[in-house]
C-alpha cells in the first residue's frame, strides 16, 4: 500500500459518504417533483366530508387535484385541521414565514381580507379575475374580493337554510310555503314541545348567526371594512337590538336545546332527529347527512332562512371555500393554471355531488348531473339563498371583531338590549389596542 493510497477504512468511509451524498441529492430531486423534473404543486385543503363507503377513487378536493394534474405538473393535497380557526393559524404562520411548500390553499372567505392585506396572496391575473367574476354568484364574489379586486378564486359557496320536520310544522300550524320569522318558529317550537337548533357556542359559527340576524334586520356589524382598524362599528343600532331580541327570546324559551351555549353545526343534528326535533338552521350538507336516517329524511323540509323582522327579507349566512395562491410559491404560472381547472364548472358540479358543498358558479346549478342529485326546489332554494346571502365583513381585523362579538354575546342567555352597545364599545377598544381579547 503506497503512502498516497488511502487507508482501507478511510476508503470505505469515503465511498459511504459519496453514496450518502448521492442518495440525499436524489431525495432532494425527488422532493422537487421526481426525476422527470415535473413540479408538484401542494394544495392545502380543508377537510372534506367523509367519503361514502361505496365511493371508489380520489374523493372531494383530492379528486379535483387528481383530475387537474397534467403532464406539466402534479397537484398533491395536504389536509388542514377541521376547525376554521386552526386552519387560519396554520396557514398564516407558514405564509408569514415565506414557506414555499404551499402553492395553493383552500381559504375560508372570512380570512380573505386578512391574508390579502398581509400580502400573503399572489394577485390573480386580470383575465382570470374577469372570467371568474362573470360566472360566479354575487355573494361569493363579494366574499372573495379585497381592495376592489378578486383576491381568491371561489370554488364552492355555502349558505344556511331553515331545515324543519314537515310533521312538526304541520302540527304547529305553520305555513312553511311563506317566509317565517324567528319569533314564529321559536313560539311554534316552545308551544309544541319542539326545539330550534342554532350555532351558539363561543366560536365563529356564533358570529355567523349574529351577522345573519343583524343583516336580516337591515343592519351591519361594521361598515367601511377596508379602513381596517378605523372601520365604522355599526352593530349598536336598531338592527343590532332586533338581533339581540331573537337570541334573548330563544335562549329563554323552551325551544332552546339543553346545550345551547355549546351548540354547533354537529350538535344540533342529533336532537333534530328525535321526536323533539322541529327546526334547525344549518348549512347545505344537511340534506346528504340525513339520507341514511330514512324517518328523518322523509320528514325533512327546507325553506329560506328565518326573518329577523317580519316582512323584511332574511339575509342568510354565506360560507364556502376559495382558492388562494401563495405569493411565495415558486410555481406561480402553474398555480394559476391549476386554479382555473380546480374552479371549473365541471369540477364544482362533481364536487357538489360528492360532498354536498354547493357550486360558486351560477350556471353550475343548471348542470344535469347536479339536477339529478338534488331535488329541483332544493337547488332553487340554495341558489336564491346564495343570491340573498350576507357575507361577514371582509376585513383584515375580522378575527378580532368576531372574537370581540363572541366575548360580549356569549352565553346566549346573557344577551339583552344593551348587548349591541357593549359589543360596539368592546370592538372599538380591541381594534384600538385598548383591550385584550
Amino acid at each position, binding site marked *: 500500500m503506497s503512502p498516497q493510497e488511502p487507508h482501507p477504512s478511510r476508503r470505505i468511509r469515503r465511498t459511504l459518504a459519496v453514496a450518502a451524498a448521492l442518495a440525499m441529492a436524489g431525495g432532494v430531486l425527488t422532493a422537487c417533483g421526481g426525476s422527470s423534473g415535473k413540479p408538484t404543486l401542494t394544495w392545502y385543503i380543508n377537510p372534506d366530508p367523509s367519503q361514502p363507503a361505496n365511493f371508489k377513487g380520489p374523493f372531494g378536493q383530492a379528486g379535483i387535484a387528481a383530475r387537474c394534474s397534467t403532464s406539466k405538473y402534479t397537484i398533491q393535497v395536504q389536509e388542514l385541521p377541521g376547525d376554521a380557526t386552526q386552519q387560519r393559524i396554520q396557514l*398564516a404562520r407558514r405564509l408569514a414565514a415565506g414557506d414555499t411548500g404551499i402553492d395553493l390553499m383552500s381559504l375560508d372567505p372570512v380570512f380573505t381580507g386578512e391574508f390579502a392585506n398581509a400580502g400573503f396572496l399572489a394577485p390573480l391575473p386580470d383575465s382570470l379575475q374577469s372570467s371568474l367574476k362573470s360566472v360566479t354568484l354575487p355573494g361569493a364574489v363579494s366574499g372573495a374580493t379585497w381592495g376592489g379586486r378578486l383576491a381568491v378564486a371561489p370554488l364552492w359557496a355555502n349558505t344556511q337554510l331553515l331545515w324543519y320536520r314537515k310533521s312538526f310544522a304541520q302540527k304547529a300550524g305553520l305555513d312553511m310555503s311563506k317566509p317565517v320569522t324567528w319569533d314564529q318558529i321559536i313560539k311554534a317550537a316552545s308551544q309544541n314541545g319542539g326545539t330550534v337548533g342554532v350555532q351558539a357556542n363561543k366560536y365563529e359559527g356564533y358570529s355567523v348567526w349574529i351577522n345573519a340576524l343583524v343583516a336580516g334586520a337591515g343592519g351591519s356589524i361594521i361598515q367601511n371594512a377596508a379602513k381596517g382598524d378605523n372601520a365604522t362599528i355599526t352593530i349598536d343600532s336598531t338592527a343590532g337590538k332586533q338581533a339581540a331580541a331573537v337570541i334573548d327570546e330563544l335562549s329563554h324559551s323552551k325551544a332552546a336545546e339543553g*346545550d345551547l*351555549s355549546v351548540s354547533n353545526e354537529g350538535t344540533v343534528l342529533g336532537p333534530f332527529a328525535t321526536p323533539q326535533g322541529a327546526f334547525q338552521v344549518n348549512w347545505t350538507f344537511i340534506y346528504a347527512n340525513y339520507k341514511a336516517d330514512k324517518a328523518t329524511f322523509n320528514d325533512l323540509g327546507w325553506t329560506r332562512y328565518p326573518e329577523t323582522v317580519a316582512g323584511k327579507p332574511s339575509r342568510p349566512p354565506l360560507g364556502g371555500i376559495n382558492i388562494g395562491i401563495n405569493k411565495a410559491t415558486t410555481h406561480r404560472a402553474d398555480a394559476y393554471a391549476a386554479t382555473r381547472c380546480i374552479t371549473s364548472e365541471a369540477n364544482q358540479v362533481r364536487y357538489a355531488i360528492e360532498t354536498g358543498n354547493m357550486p360558486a358558479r351560477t350556471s353550475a346549478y343548471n348542470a344535469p348531473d347536479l339536477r339529478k342529485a338534488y331535488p329541483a326546489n332544493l337547488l332553487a332554494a340554495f341558489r336564491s339563498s346564495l343570491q340573498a346571502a350576507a357575507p361577514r365583513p371582509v376585513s383584515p381585523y375580522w378575527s378580532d371583531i368576531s372574537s370581540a362579538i363572541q366575548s360580549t354575546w356569549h352565553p346566549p342567555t346573557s344577551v339583552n338590549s344593551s348587548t349591541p352597545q357593549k359589543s360596539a364599545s368592546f370592538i372599538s377598544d380591541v381594534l384600538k389596542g385598548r383591550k385584550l*381579547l
Partner: protein
Amino acid sequence: MTTMVATAQVKAKASDRTIAENRLGLKLVAPAVVVMVLVTAWPMIQALYLSLFKYRLTVPDDRAFTGLGNYATILSDSLFWKDTLNTIIIMIVTVAIELVIGFAFAMVMHRIVFARGLMRTAILIPYGIITVVSAFAWQFAFSLNNGFVDGWFHWLPWIGTDTNWYGDHWHAMFAIMVSEIWKTTPFMSLLLLAGLSQVSEDMIEAAKVDGATWTQRLVKVILPNMRAAIMVAVLFRALDAYRIFDNIFIMTKGAQDTESSSFLTYRQVIEQFQLGMGSALSVLLFLSVLLIAFILVKLFKVDLAAARGEA
C-alpha cells in the same frame, strides 16, 4: 524557610492544577451552556424585546415601539385579572385536593403488600396518559348528550339530570379541575410516596408503643417528617397548575370565562398574532411563576426551621 518555600511551591502547583481543571471544566460545559443560551435565554430575550412593540404578524405596516405600553394595557385590563384569578383558583383547588388524595394513595401504596407492583402501576396510569387525550376523554364524560357524569351521577343534588357542564362558569371550571386532578394526582402521590419511605419506621413504632393513636402518629410523626417532601410536591404541582392550558383548550376553549393566564397568552400570540402583546403577557406569566416559586420556597424554609425547632 525551606519548608515555607516547599509549601509555597506545593500551593502554586495546586493552584496551577485547579486553573487547568477549571479550564477543562469550562470546555466540557461550554457546549451545554451554548445550547442552554440558544434554547432558553435567547427566546426570553426576544420575548422581552418584542414585548416593547406593537407587532401584529398579519398587519405588517402597523408596527411601532410602544415601550411599556403593552404592559400598561394588560395590567389595566379586567380580562387579565379575571384570567389570573381563574388560574390562582385552579392552582389552589387542584393542588389542595391532589395533596389530600395523593397522600391517601401514597399511604396505600406504601402499605400495600399484595400485588404491590400491579397496584402502583394502576394508580399511576392516569399520569402516563397524554393530557390532550385525557382532556378529550373528560370533555366527552361531561358532555350533555352522552357523557357518563350526567348519566351516572344524576342522583346527586348538584348534578341532577341534563346538566350542561359547559353552560356556565363554575360548572365548566369544575369539569376542568376534575380533569386536572385526575391527571396529576398520581404525580403528587409518587412524590409523597418517596417522602413517606424516608420516615423512620422505628419512630412510628416507638410512637405506637408509647400509646399514640393512628391520627396522632399521622399528625405528630409522619406529616412533620414529610414536610420537605410535601413542600417539594406542592411547589412542583403549583407551578405546573399555574401554567394550565391543555385541559382548557380541549374542554372549553376558554368559553364561560374559563381562560387561564397561559390560555390568554396563547390567544394573543397564536390566534390574534399579536406578538408584542403576547410577549408582554408571557413575560408577566414568567414573573408570576417566579413569584409563586419564591413564596413557596420562603414558606418551605420557614416550615423547615419550625420543624427543627429553630423558629
